[in-house]
């Protein structure tokens, strides 16, 4: 079957770089992602290529022309739901993915419904208020939270770093605000998403427990 062949090809390729135990560890983790835009779609793409197989992703939006500069979507997909489109895209890399998607507006009132059995939770929204509400909601769970905070910028840029507060890792420059005229462009948004994915990989492969 094509699906089986595809997944074996991904595994075959990964096993040129990873031990079986490392890949097994990667495949045992589940990642929750709030937002399937610039951070979420890129982070998910990187994690799937890295071998992660279990995901829960939520986003209420449909694809817009303004998303094409940095998100994992194509022009002919404008108007389609991001979560459904992303799931199809990621299944092209690994048809065996276990991926739960929700096309919903996340709120603190509904937050308990999601990510219950996830090892990691990725905050990948774009508006500051929702970023805060999301991190503030899931932080007491004790799970490892990774939040993208400050990756916009074109003419004014600052280096992105990782800051750890308790069980929350903040990735970004912490200051360039897309709401203050700093545009979200592919190089820095993708860089931030990759740094977020790397934290998850580090915790997974170095045997650290995020729970």
């Amino acid at each position, binding site marked *: 079957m094509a699906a089986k062949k595809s997944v074996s090809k991904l595994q075959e390729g990964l096993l040129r770089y990873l031990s079986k135990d490392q890949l097994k560890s990667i495949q045992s983790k589940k990642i929750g992602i709030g937002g399937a835009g610039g951070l979420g779609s890129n982070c998910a793409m990187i994690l799937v290529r890295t071998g992660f197989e279990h995901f829960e992703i939520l986003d209420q939006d449909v694809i817009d022309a303004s998303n094409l500069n940095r998100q994992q979507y194509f022009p002919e997909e404008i108007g389609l739901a991001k979560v459904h489109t992303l799931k199809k895209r990621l299944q092209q890399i690994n048809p065996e993915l276990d991926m739960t998607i929700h096309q919903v507006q996340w709120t603190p009132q509904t937050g308990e419904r999601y990510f219950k059995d996830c090892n990691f939770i990725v905050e990948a929204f774009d508006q500051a208020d929702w970023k805060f509400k999301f991190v503030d909601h899931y932080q007491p769970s004790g799970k490892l939270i990774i939040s*993208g905070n400050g990756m916009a910028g074109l003419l004014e840029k600052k280096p992105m770093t990782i800051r750890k507060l308790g069980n929350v890792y903040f990735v970004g420059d912490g200051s360039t605000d*897309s709401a203050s005229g700093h545009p979200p462009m592919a190089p820095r948004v993708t860089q931030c998403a990759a740094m977020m994915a790397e934290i998850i990989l580090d915790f997974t492969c170095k045997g650290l427990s995020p729970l």
Partner: protein
Amino acid sequence: MQIKINGQTKTFADGSNLEAIIKQSCQNCQRVIAEVNGAIIKSQQWGQQPIRQGDQIELVSFVGGG
């Protein structure tokens, strides 16, 4: 008293609690994650969280983009 906020030493009135310190330190206190000596303190507890000489506080404000 002197405390460290995001690695920088600053002076505040003795007896200040976390809420007072954050109000003097952040432009938008509505969306801040605060950590005192390695432990995150929820905003509902800021007013009851005493701060002492030498404490280390880390504050993160959120900005848009994603």
